């Protein structure tokens, strides 16, 4: 019953009645959420929070596309435009994608490994509620004197030194969000390493738990690096230091090195859990075990390790020595090897399976197809001479939206449709799921595919106005963006709201015929407490016996 906000709506159906211990044992009303220590409630909070931020970031994206619909300035001035691009990036990365995956982790990791809850329940509460003031600071920066930060989400010095007071608010918000992420990561690592049900060895763990374990280590390694970079920016701004301020002998390029040492692993922080979700869904709907489980784990770990030695491929145009360029070019290209292994493993899982295409599988296949396009453009960008042409153009914008929207976001939608019945206890309408999928897939490509051409033809990113030759592709992208936005509004009203209200056909314990894993060993919706006593597992660690 945990994800159902409206208790009267979700009551009394079928198989959960006997397991529903929640009434009378836990706080009701607002206390249930403010004092939440239950991993399922906190997971729900994370998911709803990130969806709210996704909508805010999406509105900013639509403001950008509105201004770029035609050449010339029609609606906003260039300063506002820069605020939109900056805040769109910050809100989507730190407010939407990262917390959404933490939400998935909170809900699913204890269920998948047979643990009763997360290891540190109160820290879990704190790490969620810390995000609220941080998000408010970020969003309210539009109303501060001088407007929101407008230095790009990468916050490059020394442009950040020219920003108004909202920059300090932004830096503080990043610090708080970083602290929240680190707490979340510690919680996930400790939970996974200490609280697995007896018999579930690491190499029997579900892939989603594996990818999150590795992601959590990445987060702990790099969030402090970001905190360092923005703290130095802060002291440069107010306390007369000159870490990055060239006027005092500082080095603006050092900022970029430090930022991207965080920023590149961050890219994988945002995609590895997505790989995990896809690795759960593809076998379930192929009715076949995941191909190459071991190599999947090693590929994930290799991607994580390689992600630490490729950061300067974001900086080819800063002018680095030839040996540096060659090193970062070859190292970056190497990442496509383990990434390729993952794609091949998914295909081999599908190969000679017995596939059905319910909504989660559609999203998963859509993910593999479109994400791979983003992977190939990444390979093209990794080639230093080509990247000199593409750096800071719309090609890069296209590339990272193919991996972050068609990658991370599509995988999250896949996850919502796959595990949603377990959260809410109701089945999601297949028709609605399919409308959402096909609508999003088409409008996504209408929005971002033309950006490749804009970039090749040299249109720089973060431009409020552009030469007339770019007009048609920009108009097309803007139309696509509006459509994509509307698809997500549809998703909210026709999928999320019914789930929250518990409206729909009651979900059986295992709505997907061939899904495997401990999460399908508990009733739908998952009762307030699960696995209070460690379950006894069979040899594959996917079923509870006795």
């Amino acid at each position, binding site marked *: 019953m945990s994800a159902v906000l409206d208790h009267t709506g979700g009551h009394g159906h079928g198989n959960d009645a006997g397991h529903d211990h929640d009434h009378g044992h836990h706080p009701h009303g607002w206390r249930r959420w403010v004092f939440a220590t239950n991993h399922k409630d906190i997971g729900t909070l994370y998911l709803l929070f990130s969806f709210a931020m996704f909508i805010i970031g999406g509105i900013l994206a639509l403001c950008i596309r509105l201004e770029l619909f035609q050449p010339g300035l029609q609606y906003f001035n260039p300063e506002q435009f*820069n605020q939109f691009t900056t805040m769109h990036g910050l809100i989507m990365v730190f407010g939407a994608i990262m917390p959404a995956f933490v939400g998935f982790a909170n809900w699913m990791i204890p269920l998948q490994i047979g643990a009763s809850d997360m290891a540190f329940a109160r820290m879990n509460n704190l790490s969620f509620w810390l995000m609220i003031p941080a998000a408010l600071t970020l969003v309210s920066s539009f109303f501060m004197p001088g407007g929101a930060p407008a230095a790009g989400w990468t916050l490059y010095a020394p442009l950040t030194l020219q920003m108004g007071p909202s920059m300090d608010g932004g830096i503080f918000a990043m610090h708080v969000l970083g602290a929240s992420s680190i707490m979340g990561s510690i919680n996930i690592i400790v939970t996974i390493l200490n609280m697995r049900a007896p018999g579930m060895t690491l190499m029997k763990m579900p892939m989603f738990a594996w990818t999150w374990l590795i992601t959590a280590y990445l987060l702990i390694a790099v969030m402090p690096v970001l905190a360092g970079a923005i703290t130095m920016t802060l002291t440069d701004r107010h306390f007369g230091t000159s870490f990055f301020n060239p006027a005092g002998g500082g080095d603006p390029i050092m900022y970029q090195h430090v930022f991207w040492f965080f920023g590149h692993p961050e890219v994988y922080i945002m995609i590895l859990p997505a790989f995990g979700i896809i690795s759960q869904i593809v076998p379930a709907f192929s009715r076949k075990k995941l191909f190459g489980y071991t190599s999947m784990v090693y590929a994930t770990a290799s991607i994580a390790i390689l992600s630490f030695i490729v950061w300067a491929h974001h900086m080819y145009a800063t*002018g680095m020595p030839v040996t540096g360029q060659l090193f970062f070019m070859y190292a970056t290209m190497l990442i496509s090897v383990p990434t390729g292994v993952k794609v091949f493993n998914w295909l081999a899982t599908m190969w000679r399976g017995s596939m059905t295409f319910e909504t989660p599988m559609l999203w998963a296949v859509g993910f593999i197809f479109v994400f791979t396009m983003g992977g190939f453009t990444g390979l093209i960008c990794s080639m230093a001479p080509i990247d000199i042409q593409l750096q800071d153009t719309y090609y890069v914008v296209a590339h990272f939206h193919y991996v972050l929207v068609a990658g991370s976001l599509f995988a999250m939608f896949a996850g919502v449709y796959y595990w949603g019945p377990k959260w809410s206890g109701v089945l999601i309408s297949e028709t609605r799921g399919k409308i959402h999928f096909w609508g999003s897939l088409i409008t996504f490509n209408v929005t971002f595919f033309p950006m490749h051409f804009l970039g090749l033809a040299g249109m720089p990113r973060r431009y409020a106005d552009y030469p007339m030759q770019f007009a048609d592709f920009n108009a097309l992208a803007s139309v696509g963006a509006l459509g994509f936005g509307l698809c997500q509004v549809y998703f909210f009203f026709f999928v999320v709201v019914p789930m929250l209200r518990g409206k729909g056909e009651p979900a059986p314990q295992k709505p997907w015929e061939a899904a495997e894993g401990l999460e399908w060993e508990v009733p739908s919706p998952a009762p307030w407490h699960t696995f209070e006593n460690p379950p006894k597992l069979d040899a594959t660690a996917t079923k509870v016996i006795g």
Partner: protein
Amino acid sequence: MKMIPKLWPVALRASLAASAAAMTGLAHAADAVNNLPGGPGVRDLDFHAPATAIAADVQWLHYAMMWICTVIFVAVFGVMFYSIIKHRKSRGHQAAHFHESVAVEIAWTIVPFIIVTAMGAMATKTVVAMKDTTNADITIKVTGYQWKWGYDYIKGEGEGISFISTLDTAQRNLSDAGTPKGDDYLLKVDNPMVVPVGAKVRMITTANDVIHSWSVPSFSVKQDAIPGFVRDTWFKAEREGTFYGQCSELCGKEHAYMPITVIVKSKEGYSAWVNDQKKLMAAKADDPAKVWKIEDLVARGEKVYNANCAVCHKPDGKGAGPVKALDGSAVVLDADKMAQVAVLLNGRMDKGMPSWKSLNDTELAAVATYTKNAWSNHTGFLVQPAEVVAARAK
């Protein structure tokens, strides 16, 4: 070998012809636009036509990569879609039971490894060539300012030429008005950089305030201009013409309005241009010792103001958004008339006001005098160039 990749844009164009035609109806604004030689083409699907050997190499590398990626993509997803069609439950396909194969897994690790290493090898020669800035015929230092480019010819024919290059003011106003017009919209500058054809030009980049990036796609050149540091890059244009680029690193509010225009002239044409520039510079040189009358200095100052200050502070001196109004400003009206000169010389980085040290003493004196006596400011103050010289020396 080099012919095969060229089929790529042809194939792409053909497959996109229909959608491109459909799009023409979408944005009427673009109806009247033509391709801009040396700049972007209408609905261009490819890099600008190369004007240097490096740019041709880069274009070839990109075609090669597109072909390799397309072949892999079609092969991999051919397998996936075959499987999706054939191996479905609704067709009665029973699931097989295999879930690992060491041989296959090693193969699809090794083969991609070899492919990407080969890709790297393909690009290595170009990486090295792009970095070789030795033996230049002409060296030009380009400085990024918010929001214009400064060019200083520091070695080779034309040594000593120095000018500032700014976006055409009329185009900037068209942008604000939301009525864009012209094939070179947002790409036209008052003073383009000029180089001779066939000469190796070394560009040294730096910046005055924040990071900018000097980029000309036809030359395959993009080099960040970093304040406090110098970097270099090079190009050797192989044909005459005008080539366009735009600042490619976010540098604040007017980032979209600091284009780059490079004119490549014949050897003789270049020499003639150099002579003209030298004459112009001699004529323009101001004597900072000259004592000016207030009317003349105000008239001169208005020109300096409109060329440099009006972008932010606006022609009516009211400023906009975070940019302060000069009309009625305490600093401008200050009894200590040198307070404003100090701001002009040093900037107010905290408020986004850059330093204007690069203007000469007469220009600074003129613009200060103008603002002190324009709009509702009637101070009657007169700042002589000599006073700026003194302030600069402090």
